[in-house]
């Protein structure tokens, strides 16, 4: 975290958690796939956030995935967290994960067990205090959901 005089502003730091800023500065799995089985570009024209999702899938398991794009720290870090979290999961496991991410963002009660399963994704929870930014956080997850349900 920086030396900024804003570093004492709690809810700001909750949204821009160090994990979030780390993913924003160094996004994971950016590299485009050589021959993706599925791909989709999602964007939020209102904000100008864009993500491009590609994935390879074998027997219903995501074997490789790439997420790249342009936009705010929240949309991009959320995309990077996604890219890190879903490889080697089955479609059903991914859909379940997306349901849980949504629940967390809506501020619904989630069990400790689910919380544990979210891992680093939990860092996105601070965004729920900034309602206009929730859409940014969910952009990639919504895109992935559409992609594997199609």
């Amino acid at each position: 975290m920086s030396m900024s005089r804003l570093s004492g502003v709690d809810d700001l730091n909750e949204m821009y958690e160090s994990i979030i800023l780390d993913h924003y500065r160094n996004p994971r799995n950016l590299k485009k796939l050589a021959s993706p089985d599925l791909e989709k570009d999602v964007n939020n024209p209102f904000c100008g956030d864009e993500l491009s999702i590609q994935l390879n899938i074998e027997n219903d398991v995501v074997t490789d995935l790439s997420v790249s794009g342009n936009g705010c720290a929240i949309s991009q870090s959320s995309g990077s967290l996604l890219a890190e979290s879903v490889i080697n999961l089955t479609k059903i496991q991914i859909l379940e994960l997306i349901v849980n991410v949504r629940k967390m963002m809506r501020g619904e009660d989630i069990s400790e067990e689910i919380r544990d399963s979210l891992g680093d994704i939990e860092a996105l929870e601070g965004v729920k205090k900034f309602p206009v930014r929730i859409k940014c956080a969910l952009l990639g997850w919504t895109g992935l959901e559409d992609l594997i349900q199609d």
Partner: protein
Amino acid sequence: MSVNIDSVRKDFPILGRSVNGKKLVYLDNAATSQKPKIVIDSITEYYTKYNSNVHRGVHTLSMEATEAYENARFKVAKLINAPEDCIIWTRNATESLNLVASSWGLNNISAEQNIIITNAEHHSNLVTWQQISKKTGCELRYIDISNGFEMSNLKNILDKNTALVSITHISNVLGYVTPISDIVSLIKKMNLDTKILVDAAQSVPHMPLDVNDLGIDFLAFSAHKMMGPTGIGVLYGKKELLLNMEPYMFGGDMIIEVSYEGAKWNELPYKFEAGTPNIAGGISTGVAVDYLLNIGMENIWKHEVDLTNYALEKFSQFKNFTVLGNNLNHPRGGVISFVHKSIHPHDIGTILDKQGIAIRTGHHCAMPLVRSYGTSAAARVSFYIYNTFNEVDLFFEAIKDVEDYFL
């Protein structure tokens, strides 16, 4: 005369509030302005003391309401030096533009003609003419004003078939002021039949403007950007044009006589004002006009230009920030849009909001223009008479924090 900004600020109750524990610094005036207490009070006064419908009752309340409402129209007419019956109340500048498009455009523009707009128009003055182009088959031509308005760019595309030039007076993204008077002279030399519409949403609130001097055909603006309420706007049109235009909407108030077989239209401006209007909105807009004229449009303009020059100078010290519309020699109003090399406008907006500073982020209802700068969103500060140099300083302190936080 110089204006005491501190005393102006006292007229605006909202400027006394705090946001996130900090004193509000409101720099989103191009989106909407704040309202002085007298404007807010005039709305309460109408509903408390003489609420009634206009133009139809013989009772005292209705007569009082009609008088106040029409008096406001008179004030707006004086503000832009237009005849009263050429001032049409609409919902906002957008509706004013749509009124011209539907009522005049669809009936007067043919497939072999063309319409000229700039590449910096607000969606309301762009999508509207795209639709008229699709419906009539006419060509829509663009003047690129990204680096400022160049008369030769207009000259190159203006011809005998140009039915309309519809142009922003001050771009809500770039802040450039277009030289309307020179534009009108050029057009009139080329083709006396070409009509000129000015989108004055960002200019009427901030500078002196005289439609008669300018010689334009239509002018559109919104009350809420000039200290008035939302939900009411104005269309000015030249009388001979308005007289020959068909109504935009049908219903009460816009007719003089109705039978089961047909109807005759009311006189100007009522022909274009179907249904019970926004009475409180009209009345309080009149109060806003009085308030603006009391400060003086020249004074407002000068203060905002000073603030803008001060802010542009400060921006030049931040190497990672780029101002959109970087022609610093071009005349400009109090609007500055900017992008950061790596930090997204939304993140900038959130950090500033935490310090009580309200700015706009996004595409500013001018998507193709913002995209032409290779970005899908920008941040924007925009000033009004109540903004201070100290607020500009606070903004730049917060801008430093943005970089400290993210880089």
